[in-house]
């Protein structure tokens, strides 16, 4: 098992954000994490990356608690793609992607030719090699997301945690991102993907995990989780779920039927 969360709970102030959530990621597997805004998806990702510690439960990587890993070693194993990139200083795209090599560097850390190669390959895979010398503040939101994914790829991780990596992207780039994730997983890594694009998630992920109010509301293969009644109960909208030509579910939202929606527990 590459990444394991066992019965984790998390409180922020008075509020319980996650309770009794368990999740396992096997090598070669992509798990999709779905849920409404504020369901606890990003918090779960923070626990999975060791950024925050859970108030209860365990988070293990390859059987070892995350808190036992030195930070740099952990960053060689687990890479995170956050929702957006805000830099107060005008770093170049290439510089930010090279920071993905940080866990492998020591002291002043001049980049080795291998580091450069990794960063270049990552840029190439995201199709943004031509942006390498541009300044981050000059980029569009979608371009910044591609940079963040390239940075995570440059980390050469065993486990990739992506927080809505395709939110600002056009369809072409969404597909490219998911293809890259599949490629990475095919070589033995694992991935956890937070997404609001249900149909796309169904095509990228082996399993889906539906989070509601800090609990696991549904879990299983895309066909088992993406059902009209579950969507209405947990995500709060009406949709028709049909089977696509690839045999995977397609979610077709129904507009104008909000009145019939009641919020799930």
């Amino acid at each position: 098992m590459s990444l394991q969360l066992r019965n984790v709970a998390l409180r922020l102030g008075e509020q319980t954000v996650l309770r009794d959530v368990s999740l396992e990621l096997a090598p070669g597997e992509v798990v999709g994490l779905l849920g409404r805004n504020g369901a606890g998806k990003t918090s779960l990702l923070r626990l999975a990356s060791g950024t925050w510690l859970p108030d209860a439960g365990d988070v293990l990587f390859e059987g070892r608690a995350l808190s036992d890993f030195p930070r740099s070693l952990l960053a060689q194993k687990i890479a995170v793609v956050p929702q957006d990139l805000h830099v107060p200083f005008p770093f170049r795209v290439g510089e930010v992607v090279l920071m993905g090599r940080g866990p492998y560097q020591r002291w002043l850390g001049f980049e080795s030719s291998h580091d450069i190669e990794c960063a270049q390959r990552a840029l190439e895979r995201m199709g943004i090699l031509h942006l390498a010398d541009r300044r981050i503040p000059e980029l569009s939101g979608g371009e910044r997301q591609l940079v963040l994914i390239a940075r995570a790829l440059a980390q050469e991780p065993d486990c990739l945690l992506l927080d809505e990596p395709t939110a600002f992207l056009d369809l072409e780039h969404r597909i490219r991102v998911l293809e890259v994730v599949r490629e990475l997983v095919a070589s033995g890594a694992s991935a956890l993907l937070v997404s609001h694009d249900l149909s796309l998630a169904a095509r990228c992920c082996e399993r889906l995990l539906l989070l509601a109010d800090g609990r696991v509301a549904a879990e299983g293969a895309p066909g088992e989780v993406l059902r009209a009644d579950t969507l209405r109960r947990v995500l709060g909208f009406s949709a028709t779920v049909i089977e696509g030509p690839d045999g995977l579910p397609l979610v077709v939202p129904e507009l104008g039927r909000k009145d019939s929606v009641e919020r799930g527990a």
Partner: protein
Amino acid sequence: MKHLTAGRLGAVLLASLGVLVVCLAIGLVTGPSGISPGAALDALLHPAESGALADIVWRIRVPRLLLAAGVGASLAVAGVIFQALLRNPLADPFILGVSGGAALGGISVLVLGTWIGVGAGAAPLAAFAGAIGTTLLLYGMAAVRGRVSATQLLLTGVVFNAFASAGIVFLASIAGLADGSRIFLWLIGNLSAARTDMGIVVGVFLVVGLGVALSLARGLNLLALGDEAAAQLGMAVERQKKILLLATSLMVGAAVSVSGLVGFVGLIVPHLLRLVLGPDHRLLVPASALLGAAFLVLCDTLARSLLGGRELPVGAITALVGGPLFLVLLRRNSDRSFTA
């Protein structure tokens, strides 16, 4: 793809060092006594000589140049570190109240020292204490869930600054006349009291602080992405931030204790350099040290020669030079800039 190489770092350091040497040379041959540059250089080459010329070069100008260089480098490096820690290019030891805390500590001893039985010699120690105390207070006040948020740090700094200013004004009010003039010079920033032992104190803390900043320069780059991203990219964020804050407050305390509140160095030098060199801290930290030193050497040379035998406080020069320059740069670069 552009990236930092040892060659580029070397070239930048060499160029910065060149600028510093030129500024030191200008400072060495300039002064109110009007000795010729040739005579000044000659006196520099013969340290064993005695007489007014040797005194002026070896016992007045050289200690003062070295002190200005040390203070300038300390303040510039402290500015770089605070800007990275707070992810705000306008952060600075003054905005955070660390300089104010150091000044409050030093001035407390200047004013109250005779009552509590310590001499004015304890002022530098009290300034360290003030700087470290302020940093600890900031940390204590701003810590949330064991982490420090930049917003809270800045806000706490603003409030502490108001407190420190009030304390300084209060002490100045109860101080006598002569102490009043000393406090005035502290508040505006002044290097006229330069002595070799001061230079040594500043130098020691500069070496420590610069060493820390250089060894954690990559971490400063990561911190610019945010604490969370820095942690996810393998940085032991909390520990390194504490080390950086401690090193920085030591540098600021040392600088303030010998020169008072010299403003703008920590703000203007890193800014200028970021425009020229980009934001990579592996370049920015050493270049800021060298050019911060050069900047203050030049400003202090102006301060001590502009009015002939009469002294100007160097803080007035840095503010007069730095303020407008800063505004011009901000304006000129607003189109392709980083609105943070």
